[in-house]
């Protein structure tokens, strides 16, 4: 019974998002992966969030070596499903439109991805640091694969900025 319903969601999304996405798969009964170009990802996520009545769980960023992959995790609660919108932001152009400028819930996670992986979110209203120390050197991103602990020594820290 439930399996039938879930296929409905898949078909529905396929029809509605046809020309915006690269591909859409359903690896398990309760999960859908959507792969999107970085230019179109904010639009797709906004559509799923506001029109398709999904709840926003979180967003994650992973260093895939050719770029940073951002995954938006959305929950379709009435159908008991998780929808993941994946987009690969290439290293050559590490920019993506901010969703946080319209939807408040995206702001903090975008700040975190920005400081940890160095993706720039265009139009974000408040791009301060969230978790890293204020004295942490600018232009170093600790969750990238290329980052080593020895990249940041004590001399790199700018303690003037730490507020004391």
């Amino acid at each position, binding site marked *: 019974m439930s399996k039938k319903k879930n296929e409905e969601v898949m078909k529905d999304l396929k029809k509605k998002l046809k020309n915006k996405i690269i591909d859409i798969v359903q690896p398990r009964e309760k999960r859908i992966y959507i792969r999107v170009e970085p230019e179109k990802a904010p639009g797709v996520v906004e559509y799923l969030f506001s029109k398709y009545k999904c709840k926003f769980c979180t967003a994650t960023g992973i260093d895939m070596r050719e770029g940073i992959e951002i995954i938006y995790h959305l929950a379709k609660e009435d159908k008991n499903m998780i929808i993941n919108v994946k987009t690969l932001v290439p290293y050559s152009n590490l920019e993506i439109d901010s969703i946080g400028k319209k939807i408040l819930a995206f702001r903090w996670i975008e700040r975190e991805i920005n400081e940890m992986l160095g993706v720039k979110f265009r139009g974000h209203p408040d791009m301060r640091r969230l978790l*890293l*120390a*204020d*004295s*942490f050197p600018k232009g170093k991103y*600790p969750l990238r694969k290329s*980052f080593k*602990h020895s990249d*940041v020594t*004590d001399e790199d*820290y700018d*303690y003037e900025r*730490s507020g*004391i």
Partner: protein
Amino acid sequence: MDILKKSFKKSIWVFHLSTAACNNCDIEVLELLTPRYDVERFGIKLVGSPRHADALLVCGSVNAHAKPRLLEVYRQTPKPCLVVAFGSCGCSSGIFRDSYSIVGPVDKVLKEEDPDAKIVYIPGCPPKPEAMIEGIIKGLEAI
């Protein structure tokens, strides 16, 4: 020095400072104050300001955000003062040693500011309350 010994004998006032600790050590410090160990019978007492303290109890692997705060508190503590590097993290940064935000254990940070700082190490995750009392007594002998 005799007057120092006499005045320290039954009135060690401790300022408890947490520099990016996981809170386990902080909870274990409370154990010392409760009736089972009750360190106040030795005159060891937690105070609210570093300016009143004879000893600094520093928990946690010092990270970049906490380092200037630790140094500022150390500057405000009247000398001579005893610094207790508390727990595995305080002694050696523990499992967080190679993390991106850690700038070093307590002794490394303090020796930059004051090479003559008197530091006692109490390892353990968290240390046993007996070890804490023992450590503070040993530190006093060193002063």
